[in-house]
C-alpha cells in the first residue's frame, strides 16, 4: 500500500524522539562548555617539550637540539637554534640545548611525527585544545618557555605512556651509570697501578682528581630524577 514506507519511517523517528528522553544511546549530545567528555590517553593536539624539573623547566629540558624534528616536520613549523655552550643532561653528559625552540601552531597539523622521530623522549603531544585567540600572530607562535611542561604533567595526561617512557629512560641512565662507574674503576685501577709503578705520590694525584668529579656530576642529576618520576607515578595512582 502506498504510504506504508513513510509510516514505518515515522515510527522510527517517533521511537528516536521518545527514546531521547530516557535512553542515553539515543541522546548523545554533550553540552560542551558545561559538560566535557573524557579525552582518551592517545588524544593528540599540539606538541610540548618535556622538562624533568618543575622548578627549573629551562634547565631540565630533555631536548638536546638535535633538530631531527625540525627536519622531519612535514609542514615545517618547528624552528630550533642550538646553544653555544653545553649543559649536563639527565645522564650527566654535557649536551647542547635549544637556545631557541619555536613552534608555530597555526602551521602545525598535529601529525605527531616529531614525537615519533625524537630519540630523547623530549617532545610529546598535549591534550590542551582550548587555545583560540583573537590575534593570529604572536599568541600562536610558541617559544620554548611556553612549550615546556613538566614530566608530572605528562604523567597526568598519559599515565601509561609516561610510565613506559620513564622506565626506558631509567634503564638507559642505569646503563650509562654502570658504564661510567666501570670506566672510573678502570681509570682508578690504572692510576693506582701507575702510582705503584712510579712509587712516587705526586703523579697519582692528577689522575685521581677527575674521576670523583665526573662521578659526582653523573650521580647528582640521577639522584634528582627518581624523585620526580616517583612523584609522577604517585599522581597517577
Amino acid at each position: 500500500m502506498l504510504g506504508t514506507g513513510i509510516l514505518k519511517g515515522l515510527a522510527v523517528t517517533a521511537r528516536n524522539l521518545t527514546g531521547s528522553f530516557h535512553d542515553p544511546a539515543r541522546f548523545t549530545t554533550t553540552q560542551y562548555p558545561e559538560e566535557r567528555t573524557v579525552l582518551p590517553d592517545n588524544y593528540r593536539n599540539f606538541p610540548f617539550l618535556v622538562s624533568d624539573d618543575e622548578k627549573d623547566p629551562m634547565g631540565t629540558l630533555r631536548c638536546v637540539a638535535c633538530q631531527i624534528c625540525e627536519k622531519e616536520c612535514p609542514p615545517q613549523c618547528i624552528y630550533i637554534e642550538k646553544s653555544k655552550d653545553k649543559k649536563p643532561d639527565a645522564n650527566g653528559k654535557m649536551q647542547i640545548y635549544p637556545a631557541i625552540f619555536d613552534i608555530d601552531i597555526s602551521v602545525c597539523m598535529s601529525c605527531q611525527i616529531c614525537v615519533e622521530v625524537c630519540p630523547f623522549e623530549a617532545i610529546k603531544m598535549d591534550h590542551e585544545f582550548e587555545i583560540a585567540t583573537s590575534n593570529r600572530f604572536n599568541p600562536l607562535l610558541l617559544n620554548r618557555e611556553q612549550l615546556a611542561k613538566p614530566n608530572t604533567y605528562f604523567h597526568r595526561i598519559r599515565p601509561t605512556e609516561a610510565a613506559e617512557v620513564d622506565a626506558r629512560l631509567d634503564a638507559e641512565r642505569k646503563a650509562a651509570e654502570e658504564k661510567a662507574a666501570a670506566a672510573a674503576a678502570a681509570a682508578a685501577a690504572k692510576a693506582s697501578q701507575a702510582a705503584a709503578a712510579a712509587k712516587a705520590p705526586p703523579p697519582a694525584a692528577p689522575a685521581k682528581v677527575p674521576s670523583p668529579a665526573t662521578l659526582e656530576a653523573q650521580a647528582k642529576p640521577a639522584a634528582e630524577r627518581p624523585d620526580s618520576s616517583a612523584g609522577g607515578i604517585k599522581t597517577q595512582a
Partner: protein
Amino acid sequence: MIESPSSPLIESAGSRVRAVQDDFHGDLLEISMGPHHPSTHGVFRMIATLDGEAIVKLKPVFGYLHRNHEKLGENTTYLGSMPYTDRLDYLNSMTNNWAYALAVEKLIGQPVPERAEYVRVILAELTRLQNHTCLAGFLMQDCGCSGTPLMYAFREREKILDLFESLSGSRMMCNYQRFGGCRVDPPSEWLEAARRLTEGYGAFLDEYEALLTRNEILMARTQGVGRLGPELAVNSGITGPMLRATGVAYDIRKVDGYGIYPRFTFRVPLGAHGDTYDRYMIRILEARESISILRQALKDIPAGPIMDPKAKLRGLRPKPGEAYGRIEGPKGEIGFYLISDGSPNPYRYRIRPPSFVNLTLLEDLCLGHTVADAVVILGSIDIVLGEVDR
C-alpha cells in the same frame, strides 16, 4: 521531439541534446550552482544549461580546494607525506593511509606483520561503515530531507570516530599506518569496544533501512534517476560502489586480494539498474558485508608485533624504481603511484582519486534531468572535494 530547421542542436560532451529555440520555448537558461552551495558537498561549481527544466549541458568546475598535494608529496620525505594523505578524503583517512603505505611497502619490499594486517582490515572496514552511513545521510539531505537521517548517521559515525580517536589520537586525521605496520598496538579493551560496536551496528542499519529503504518519497526521487550503463561506467574508469551499482562485479578486495582479504568470506553486492537508488542500496548492503568481515577479523586477530622490527621510520631511501599501490576504498579504487630516484623524496607522487574519476561522468548522468535531480545524482556519486581537487 521533432527536429525543425529553427531548432539547432547543442553540442555537449558525450551526447547531442536538442534544444528547441523558438518563440514558444524561449531561450536556454544558464545557471551557476556553487561553489558555495550546500548541495555541492564542498566548494564545487556546476554550470548547468537548462531548457525549460531539463538540463541540456552541465559543466563541472572544480579546483577551489587545490592544495598542490602531489607536488608537496615530491618535496617531503616518504614519511612526511603520510599525514597529508589524511587530508585527501578526510572522511576515510584510514584507507588513504593504507593505500599509501601499500605503495611504499611495495617500493621498498617491506613485509607487514600478521597482526598489523588484521588491524588494517578492521580499520578499513570501520571506515567503510562510517563512510557509507554518512553517504546515505548526505544523500537524504540532498533529497531535501534535511536533518533526521543525517543526524542518525552522524550519531553512529561518532562511535566509530571515538574508536579512531582512542587508537590513533585523532578523529579524522588519523595518520595511523606506517611502512611495515601500524603506529599503535590496539589494546584488548579497544578490540572489545570494536566488537561491541560491530554487534550493535546491524541493529542500527535495520533501523536506518526501516526509515529509508522502502520510503515512497525516496523511491520516487531516486529510482530511474541518473541511470548509468555498465559499458559507459567501465569505459570511463568508474570504480567502487558506483560501478557495482551498474552490475559489474569488480571489487579490488576480490580482484587483487591485497592484505589478507582472501581469508575472509564476504559477498560483493551488485546493482541491476545503475540508478541513484541502486547506488544507495549498494552502500547499505556493503555496510552489512563490512560488518561480517569485521566479525571475522575481530575473531581471528592474532597476537604479535604490530610493526615489523626491521622497518625504518625515517631516512627512507628506496632504490630507483616505481610502485603502484591500490586498495578498494569506500569510494572506489584509491591508488598511489610512486617513482623513486634513490633520494629521500619521491621523484613522482601521483594519486588516483576515486571521487575525481567518478565525478567525470556527472554530465552524462544529469542530462535530461531537472536541477533538483542533479543535486541528488551528485550526492549519490559520493565525492569529497579534498580528494577531487587535491
